[in-house]
């Protein structure tokens, strides 16, 4: 037992030496996660501002002017031009100069005052469905607010139902707030899976893996000797992303660091298990690299990072269940934004343990049996 432990320590020491010896390779482990986090933080945002729109104001009344002022005062919309007729506004949308066309119908003011439904049409460019949808709903909300305020000012009774919305955990509904905590898992997964997948393949290519197999190491020892250094690197990278989230993007941390790190450790074990699994399938570094890419893309798409997993077809939903990143994103979001406690995340943690418990022993078994 102690002998085995000493041998594992020997392997870990060797692995860390190979990884960290060269200043360039040290930098390549820590700088990319920070850069990626900054790029994601600024680039991957669904929050809109200065959305170009074309205005067709057929009413030309005090009310219509007040509505336009309200739209533009929000800072979200920027008028591309005002047109008398619909036919003149359409080319703006076709040429992608405007994302929306807002048509204020004839009799807008009169209808408002008489309590008859007042016609306002918002036409969106469906070619960019995501952004248009968001812009459309912004516009809808602003127009609704305007109508309610107008009627209230003039002593008309308010509409039967008024919906008041609040976003909890992320009051401004900033994409960045939900994106960055998810990156803690996503970025470390990309880096550690690559790292582990390549490391065994490199040893196979350079013949050093044969030396390890000929030496008195058991496959389990080799596996642990590969997993622990990657884990150390992964935790360091995750901490770097966390620091960027806390001190650069200043996103308030609601939960406990213990729960977060417990979740991250389990997640890394599962991700590294996958990496080792791919590595044990690959015969050389090129194959390992390709395999890692082939797996990383679906892992990202099927994780709930970009789109909610609940909306996916049932088959894909099953796939999300064997994806360690799904659980990592849930854990980091819940801990970071909601302050979720360990107990409520237990199912996710156990799922990660289960993934690691399958991939790791399989990888260890493959070390010796992939001897063609």
């Amino acid at each position, binding site marked *: 037992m102690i*002998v085995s432990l*000493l*041998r594992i320590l*020997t*392997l870990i*020491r*060797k692995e860390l*030496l*190979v990884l960290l*010896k*060269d200043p360039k390779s040290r930098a390549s482990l820590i700088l990319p996660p920070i850069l990626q986090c900054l790029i994601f933080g600024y680039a991957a945002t669904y929050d809109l501002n200065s959305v170009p729109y074309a205005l067709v104001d057929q009413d030309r009344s005090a009310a219509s002017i007040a509505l336009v002022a309200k739209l533009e005062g929000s800072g979200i919309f920027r008028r591309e031009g005002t047109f008398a007729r619909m036919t003149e506004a359409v080319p703006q949308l076709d040429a992608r100069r405007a994302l929306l066309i807002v048509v204020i119908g004839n009799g807008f003011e009169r209808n408002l005052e008489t309590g008859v439904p007042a016609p306002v049409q918002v036409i969106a460019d469906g070619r960019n469905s995501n952004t248009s949808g968001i812009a459309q709903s912004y516009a809808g909300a602003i127009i609704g607010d305007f109508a309610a305020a107008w009627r209230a000012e003039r002593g008309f009774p308010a509409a039967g139902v008024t919906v008041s919305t609040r976003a909890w955990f992320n009051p401004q509904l900033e994409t960045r707030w939900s994106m960055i905590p998810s990156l803690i898992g996503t970025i470390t997964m990309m880096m550690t899976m690559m790292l582990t997948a390549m490391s065994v393949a490199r040893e196979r290519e*350079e*013949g*050093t893996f*044969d*030396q*390890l*197999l*000929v*030496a*008195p*190491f*058991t496959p389990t*020892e080799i596996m642990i000797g590969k997993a622990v250094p990657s884990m150390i690197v992964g935790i360091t990278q995750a901490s770097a992303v966390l620091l960027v989230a806390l001190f650069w993007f200043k996103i308030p941390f609601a939960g406990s660091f213990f729960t977060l790190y417990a979740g991250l450790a389990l997640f890394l074990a599962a991700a590294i298990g996958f990496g080792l699994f791919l590595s044990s399938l690959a015969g050389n570094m090129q194959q390992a690299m390709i395999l890692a890419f082939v797996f990383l893309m679906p892992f990202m798409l099927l994780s709930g990072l970009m789109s909610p997993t609940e909306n996916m077809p049932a088959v894909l939903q099953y796939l999300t269940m064997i994806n360690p990143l799904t659980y990592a994103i849930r854990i980091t979001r819940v801990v970071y934004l909601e302050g979720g406690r360990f107990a409520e995340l237990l199912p996710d943690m156990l799922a990660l343990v289960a993934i690691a418990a399958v991939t790791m022993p399989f990888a260890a078994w493959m070390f*010796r049996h992939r*001897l*063609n």
Partner: protein
Amino acid sequence: MEDRPLSLVARDLRKSFRRDAKETVEALGGISLTVRKGTLTALVGPDGAGKTTLLRLASGLILPDSGSLTVVGLDVAEKPQAVQDRIGYMPQRFGLYEDLSVQENLDLYADLNGVSPAERRTVYPRLFEMTQLGPFKDRPAGKLSGGMKQKLGLACTLVRAPELLLLDEPTVGVDPLSRRELWEIVFKLIREDGLSVVVATSYLDEAERCEHAVLMHAGEILAEGPPAEITAKADGCCFLVKGPEGVPARSLQARLFALPGVVDAVPEAGRVRIVRRPDRLEEPLTLEGLQLETEPTGARFEDAFMMLFDSVAGERDHTSPAPLAASPENAADGTVVEVRDLVRKFGDFTAVDHVTFSVRRGEVYGLLGPNGAGKSTTFRMLCGLLPATAGTLRVAGNDLLKAGAKARERLGYVAQKFSLYGQLTVGENLEFFASAYGLRGNRKKERIATLTAAFELERFRDLPSGQLPGGFRQRLALAAALLHEPDILFLDEATSGADPLARRQFWGRITALSEQGVTVIVTTHFMEEAEYCDRVIILDAGRNLAEGTPVEIRERAVSGKTAPSMEEAFIAIVERERAKRTEKAA
């Protein structure tokens, strides 16, 4: 011949390399050399003599620090591209694209060199005929044997019909049969095309066949001239010595090599061939108080080579090994390695076909055979790196594939290819492998210190092992395999690419180990190295062709010629068996 035009003229060439900020290494220290058109010139010398540097200068890949160099009538420093268009250079590791087929590789080099389709129609058939690669046109280069890869590399170099051919160690890792075929191609080119060839080699029998040999040492020319002239310097100094009964030739060789008056000693057909210092020929040859009988024999190029090097190499280590003892095989205490009916198939292809042999404790056992004969496959199965398809194999009573980690503690393994951690320093590598085999504390320190000293690795301790010169990498690999004092040592072509001096040192160490009872199993392409073995097995196409002591193997190959060399015996046996097989097939 003297009035033939000159293909290469070097005047006082100097070249230094910077190893790091502090240290510069002088690779060439003022070389002057001429190569006449249509001749074959061999550059021989130990590692670091400057052979490769000279060839790279001649091909215009690097520039000299000073001196002048004219190749095919052009100044290389001024017109490197014009020179490169008219010469062919084949480096040690020729850049074949492993995933491309033989034909595609050839096409690629023809494209790169701008060979027109019309020229290709005349050049290709001839190249395929010479290299006999025709039947393998569609095979990926990565799947060719070592010998075939070298032939393809040569074909790619010859695709635009160069005037001067520069070959850097073209036969390293190539078996004797392919080596002979490769040389036949080179001779044919000289004879029929009037090509000039400069070849760097560490096979001295190859140098013997050249018209002009250049002996280099530490960046300078030690001697040059026709090989016969150089060989003559050792005339009258060469003897065959027979040792006491039951003493392996390698043990006697190790002691004789350590004697002050002896320049060189190598085992040969159960006896030891020695070269004595010309000024000490009169003294009687005594070893441990015993006067030894010597029988004069003719000199070879290698004898003269060793003699010339002895005069400049400085004092060799003459501390004699332990006193001579009878070989441990006489006190046989059991079989260590046992292989019975071993079979390994890859798909339809049978790499190892019912091979049976056994090795006793303390024996040095050689696995010989052409490239692709199944030696490495057998080796990998013995080490537990590859499962056998059928048959049994036992190493110290265990099947290493199935046995636990404990069984592997007794094993040392040096792979064909350098396979230590290139990024880690020499010291870190030794440290890792010592710990891997469970050495700790003082014992670990002591073993590392002992081996670093024994293999003269102190000055490289902090150098990443990937940057070590070739010979020292080999030493480090062996040192790492010996840290834990294994009972059984597996060496897969461990001396491939090593120079003659390094090979003698290497075998000195192996001899010492076997005398301590270590069982050694080796594969090699150097047939003279088979002379160090107690017994050898010759494999071809996965089958056992012959097994026995080197003397028995020679006897089996005898056909008219009285004393074949080990290499001749090997070729004779393999060819005879191949002929039998094709007969049977027909």
